[in-house]
Structures are given as C-alpha cells and as structure tokens.
C-alpha cells in the first residue's frame, strides 16, 4: 500500500477569509484505489479544503500537485479537466432543467446537428441506473424529486466524467440506510477501478465501513493522516475534538417514556388533515412534553406532514385543534403566532437568509411574530443571541458574521436557535441533525430531551431510525404519503420493529 504514488498531493494549504483563517497549512494526499475521509467537526475546514482542490477558492499559500504535476486551479473547469469530479455538500444542480440534463450538462452527446437528445437521454439513463435510479425519467424536471434524490442525481452527474478523483462532501446526510448501502456499493466499484475517492461524513459507522485512510482537521489545522484500520474510534474522536472521547456529552440509552395521563389534553391534534397529492388525511396528537418521531423511507411524506402541521402548505382537508380549540393554520405566520415552529430539512432554500448575519437569522422569527414596527429591544436581543450562541456552541462565536459564511453544521444550529427563541409549544424538527458532527449531534439530541422535559411538544423527523427510536415517546410511521402506524415506543421497540412495520404494511396494501 505504502509504495503507491498519491494522485493528489496538497501541501501547506492556507486559505484566509476576511477575519478567519479557514485553513492553515493543511496537507492531504489522495491515493488511487482508496477511499479517503476528511474528518473534523463542523467548521473544521473540510468543505473549504475540498473547494481548494476543485478550484472554487484560490489558495493563499501551499501547493497542489495532481498526477505529479504542480497544478494551478483557477476554477471548477480546471479541476474537471484535471480529472476531479465533485459532489458538494449543498446540492448544486439546476432545478429549472430536467433530471437528465442535470446529469449530462456540459457532456451532452452531440450528433451532426448539435446535441442529440435521444442519445443524451439514453446516456443519462445509463448513469442514473448506475446509482439505482433507473425508475427516474430523465425528462422529468429536477424540481419534481426530493432533495435526497437530487443528491443521488448529483452523484450520478459526477460519475459522467472519467474521473481520477471523486469527491463526495457529505453525500449520505440525506440518505436512508438502504440508499447508503447502494451508494457504498457504487463507491467500492469505483474505488476498485482505481479512482481516488475523497469522502466526508459525520457518521463514524460509515467511516469505518467504507474508508481506508483518514485525514483529520481541527479548527483549520492539519492534525494527522492515519489508516482507518489502525485507528480506534476513541482515538479518532479525540483527535477531531481535541479532548478525550469520554468528555463528550453522551445521552443514555433510550429515553424514559413520558406517560400520558388519562384525561390529559394534547397540545395539538389534527383530524383528517391532508392535502391532495402530498399527504393523505391524517390523525395525530402531540402532547405537551412528548416527543413524536416520524419514521419512514425517503419520500414517505414525513416532510409533507410536518409542513402541513406548520401551515407552510395549506391543507385542503381536515381540522386543526390547538389546546382543544379549533384553529385555522394556513400560513407559517399564524402557526408561529400560535406557538408552532418548524425547522426545515432544506436549509439552503427554506432555512437560512444567506446574506443576513447570524444574529439576524436567530432573531428573525421572533421579530416576525412581534411585528415589523415592534423591534426587539437591544438588550433582550443580546441576551437571546448570547444564550443560544453558547448553548448550541455556534462556531465561530461571532453573531455578526454572515450566516452564509458559516459551515453547514453551524448554520443548522443557528436555525434551531431561531425556533427556540420563540418558545414554541410545538416544535417540528425536520432532519435537525443532518450534517451535524457527533459532538453537536449529541448536544442537539440532548436539547430535544430538555425541551420535552420543560413541557414542549416535539415532532422529530429523521432518516436515522436510531435517533428516532432513542428520542421518541411515540413513533408515527409513514409510507407512500400515508400514516400506517402509531407505535408506542416502549422497551420492546427497536429499529427493527419499525423496519418490519414498513415492510409488512407494504404487503397488506
């Protein structure tokens, strides 16, 4: 192994943004036929390192060698021509075009009369099929499929060029277990064909399953390059967070179930609430202090149900009861006024307001419900911002930075702070731990439990069954845009129970 020549050598890479040194003398070597993981907490500089390698950012110091040749990368095109294919952390496709076009953009098959669409679509189909997406029509608009699917399409796109290096920045964060396995199968195939793969993920299980070599970053500093096999978990975590793994706040096994007292009224009840084409009429109760988990496969309708309960989409069917009283929730404003908050899974498009500061992003929802002409007093605002910056450990701890300049995980924390600031009665969290590092994930999970203990109702939507099972009191299982089961999450329930429920109901239906 050691005598192999690296295909990419990055040495002493330094990148400075106004006010932050995002990378400071970082080294990275990628070997053909290996899966290499960049490891580090949120904001450690992983995505920045990747963007240096793909020519998005110009480096301030250091050198990049590809195939033994020193290389200047002045743009993504250069990187692509050097054989580097990339799937970025945030999906970067064009929603106005079809799926097939997104796969083939820039590589369309040409005939004597320009682009030959028949061949191009056929080619797209081929690449989609490799990703297990043969059921997608390449002519359908990209906007008709979920973010998760789009992520897979983005990977299919990356495979179109004959890459020597394939970079995947958190490709698994929105995939469910099956899809992750499919993806790994593909990655192995690609790796075995001699491609160097650079992979980022916050799931340690995945890291140990698929990678051969690790480079660890902390705070923009290069810590170490190690072989995965030779590095125990504790040691890895220690290197990533700079303290011993034991110090990491851990939550115990499964949450003790909150018993519903007889005669107790739920905070929120929906009766036959539904919207044509999105989610069938559904009943659901959420009690104060209860955590309701939504489980289901991709596209099962969890997000749709969450959005409906928040008024982000208007229901066309059913009733909404709040503390037993009938209400009409038909816009986020009304929902927020009534103490219902929803944290989106689509952080970039529906979550952050990119060009506002962290502070403004935290306060904006509270401000919206107070009204435009009733500004939050500065002192109160300072307190709120201070509190959540600390409590959620947002880094860098500067609330006046633009949120778009934060790492993905830290953006997520700011969004959670936004909703906590309004003290909702019901908080709907859609994939709140997506893209969050292990430390922060534990913090957020902990936070959910605390909030529930304080009496907040929580709907917890996640593709990670493990955390759904661990945190929820009740688990609502959805399939094909329909609720198929309510599982009381007692000690007998495990991930397997839910998988089984989903599988069985398929047969019944």
């Amino acid at each position, binding site marked *: 192994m050691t005598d192999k020549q690296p295909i990419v050598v990055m040495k002493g890479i330094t990148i400075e943004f106004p006010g932050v040194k995002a990378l400071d003398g970082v080294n990275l070597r990628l070997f053909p036929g290996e899966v290499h993981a960049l490891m580090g907490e949120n904001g450690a500089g992983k995505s920045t390192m990747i963007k240096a390698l*793909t020519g998005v950012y110009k480096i301030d110091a250091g050198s990049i060698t590809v195939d033994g040749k020193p290389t200047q990368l002045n743009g993504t095109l250069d*990187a692509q021509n050097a054989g580097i294919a990339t799937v970025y952390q945030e999906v970067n496709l064009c929603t106005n*075009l079809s799926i097939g076009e997104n796969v083939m953009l820039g590589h369309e098959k040409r005939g004597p009369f*320009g682009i030959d669409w028949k061949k191009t679509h056929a080619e797209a189909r081929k690449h989609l099929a490799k990703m297990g997406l043969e059921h997608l029509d390449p002519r359908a608009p990209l906007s008709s499929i979920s973010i998760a699917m789009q992520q897979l399409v983005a990977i299919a796109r990356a495979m179109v060029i004959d890459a020597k290096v394939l970079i995947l920045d958190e490709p698994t964060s929105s995939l469910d277990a099956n899809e992750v396995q499919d993806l790994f199968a593909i990655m192995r195939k690609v790796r075995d064909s001699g491609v160097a793969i650079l992979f980022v993920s916050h799931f340690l299980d995945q890291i140990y399953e698929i990678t051969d070599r690790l480079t660890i970053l902390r705070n923009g500093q290069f810590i170490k390059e190690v072989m995965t096999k030779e590095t125990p978990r504790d040691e890895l975590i220690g290197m990533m967070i700079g303290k011993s793994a034991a110090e990491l706040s851990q939550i115990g096994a499964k949450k003790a179930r909150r018993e519903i007292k007889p005669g107790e009224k739920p905070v929120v009840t929906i009766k036959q609430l539904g919207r044509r084409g999105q989610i069938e009429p559904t009943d659901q109760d959420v009690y104060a202090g209860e955590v309701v988990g939504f489980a289901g496969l991709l596209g099962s309708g969890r997000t749709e149900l969450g959005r409906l309960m928040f008024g982000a989409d208007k229901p066309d069917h059913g009733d909404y009861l709040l503390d037993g009283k009938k209400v009409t929730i038909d816009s986020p404003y009304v929902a927020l006024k009534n103490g219902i908050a929803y944290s989106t899974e689509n952080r970039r498009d529906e979550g952050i307001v990119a060009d506002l500061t962290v502070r403004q992003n935290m306060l904006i929802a509270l401000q919206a419900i107070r009204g435009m002409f009733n500004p939050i007093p500065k002192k109160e605002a300072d307190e709120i911002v201070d509190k959540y910056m600390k409590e959620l450990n947002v880094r860098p701890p500067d609330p006046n930075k633009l949120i778009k300049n934060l790492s993905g995980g830290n953006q997520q924390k700011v969004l959670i702070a936004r909703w906590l600031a309004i003290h909702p009665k019901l908080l709907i969290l859609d994939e709140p731990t997506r893209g969050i590092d292990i430390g922060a994930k534990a913090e957020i999970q902990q936070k959910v439990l605390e909030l529930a203990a304080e009496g907040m109702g929580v709907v917890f939507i996640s593709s990670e069954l493990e955390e759904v099972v661990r945190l929820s009191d009740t688990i609502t299982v959805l399939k094909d845009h329909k609720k198929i089961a309510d599982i009381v999450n007692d000690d007998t329930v495990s991930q397997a129970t839910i998988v089984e429920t989903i599988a069985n109901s398929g047969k019944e239906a």
Partner: protein
Amino acid sequence: MSSAAVTPKAKKAKGGKFDAQMIPTIAAVVIFILMLIMGQVLFGTYFRLGFISSLFIDHAYLIILAVAMTLPILTGGIDLSVGAIVAITAVVGMKMLNGGTPAPLVLIIMLLIGAAFGLLAGVLIEEFNMQPFIATLSTMFLARGIASIISTDSLTMPENNSFAWIGGEGWKIIDNPKISNDLSINLGVIIALVVVVFGYILLHHTRTGRTIYAIGGSRSSAELMGLPVKRTQYIIYLTSATLAALASIVYTANIGSAKNTVGVGWELDAVASVVIGGTIITGGFGYVLGSVLGALVRSILEPLTTDFGVPAEAVQIVVGVMILIFVVLQRAVTAFKKE
C-alpha cells in the same frame, strides 16, 4: 377565456416532456391567433395578405431583437443596449455607404461594431462585476452618445446600392391586382427567420445553449458544475449585440435612411416581446419561438388600438393594459395548471 381553458387539456394529451413551462408560450400562440381573428371580424383587414406581409416585413427587425434579447433574459440578465446599437451601427453604416465604401464591407463593419459593444458589456459584467442591467445601460448611453457625436443628420442611402437589396421590396409571392392582397417577402424577413432558427439551434442543440439555461437556473450551481459560465456570458452579450447590429442592417435597408435617434425604446419592445412569449424575466425558463410570437403580438397591438379608435392620450394606457392582461392571463393559466 375559452382558449385558456383549452390549453391545459391539449397539454395533458401530449404528455411527456410537455410541461408547465410551455404554457405561457402556448398562450401567446392562442392569443395571437385570437387577436388576428378579432381584427378580421371587426375590421376585415387582418387576414389580407398585404397586412400579413407588412407585419413581417416591418417587424423583421423586432423579431431579430426579440431573439437577441432572449439570450440574456434566459440567464436572468438583460441587454438594454440593443436599441442604441441599432442607432450607432445604422449611422456608421450609412456614413460609410455615402463615403463610397462597398456595401459588403459596410455590413461587416456594422456587425463588428455591434460585437464590440457586446464585448464591452461582457467585460464590464464578467471582469468588473457590474450587473447586466447597469452594464448594458452604460453601453446604451455610450452607443447612443457616440452615434450622436458622429452625426445628428438624417442620412439617406446613396442610390443604386446593393445594401438596399436586403430590405428592398423583395419578392411578391402572390401578386394580386390590389397591393393589399399581395403576399410579399424580402431578404430582411428571411434573415429574421434564419436568426430564429439560429437561436433555436443555439439554445436547444448546443452546449452553450444549455449552459445559458443552467446559468438562468442557478449561476453558482452552473459554476460548481464546471460549466464555462464566463465564456458563455461573453457569448451571450456578444451575440445579442451582434444580432442588434443585424437588426439595424435589416431596418436601415428597409427604410433606406438612418439617424442617431433611431431605436429609442426598442429595447423595451424587445423585452416586452420576450416576456409576452413566455420567457421569465428572472431567467431559466423560456423559448426563442415564444419570443418571436411575442414580437408579433407586440406588433399587432398598435394597429388594433388605431382601428378601435382609442383616443391618442390613452393609446399608451391601452397598450400597457393589453400587455398586462396578457401577462396576468399567462400567470393564471400557469397557476391553474399547477393546481
């Protein structure tokens, strides 16, 4: 409107790639035909071959400008300089013709001047981060100003010039005793049609074209996908400005004279045509054929207001309201379809 209700049905029947994006364009077709029919029923002159002929001959320039404007608008940009480029190329061209320069050379120089302004706009946009609106507004002032500096005279074409041939009477395909029943076509119209075909092929059958759509969808995504965004932007503004010069050739050849004041406000006519044709001003969606129809719809508004005897002061209001109704209708149809 019955037509509006019909469209979505027709759509479903076809299925496949036929999606909501095409509705505004189809609405443009339907409404154009309805307007023609209305004109014919009420005034009896709209189906005359002469009317149809002059609709095309007199608006060949607008069709070219609409195609030109479609490119930047598809990326969410705009080219406000097209009208002024018509002016400067017309003035320079006419001056040179009068100075005895051979017509073919004049044509080439006119196109090159257009291209030069396109290049300048491209540089301002891509190298100096100016927004297209501001960059092309600047080149618009610049072109118009230079045209005025060169000459404020009304310049006429010298006699017997091969240049005039482009715009000349052209050919009568159907020659009736009455001129109002003649169907004629001239080289200008043919050039316009060639430009339309060129626009169609560029947008739908070249990688550059697809990159234009991608930029309109999301420029940053297009960049991250490794598409040649910068080069494409240059191509867009070069093409639109060069086509504006071509429109100038067609127009000046047609009327045989030129002036620094020609083309004032044409950029807005072109934008209106593009929008009526269903292209979304924020980019990403639209068709060049829609723009052509938009140009025809735009062209037919004035005859209709004249025939309806709209009082002079209100003509602009009526034209505005007609475009508004158009846009609202398209919006309604699109929303209806989404439901």
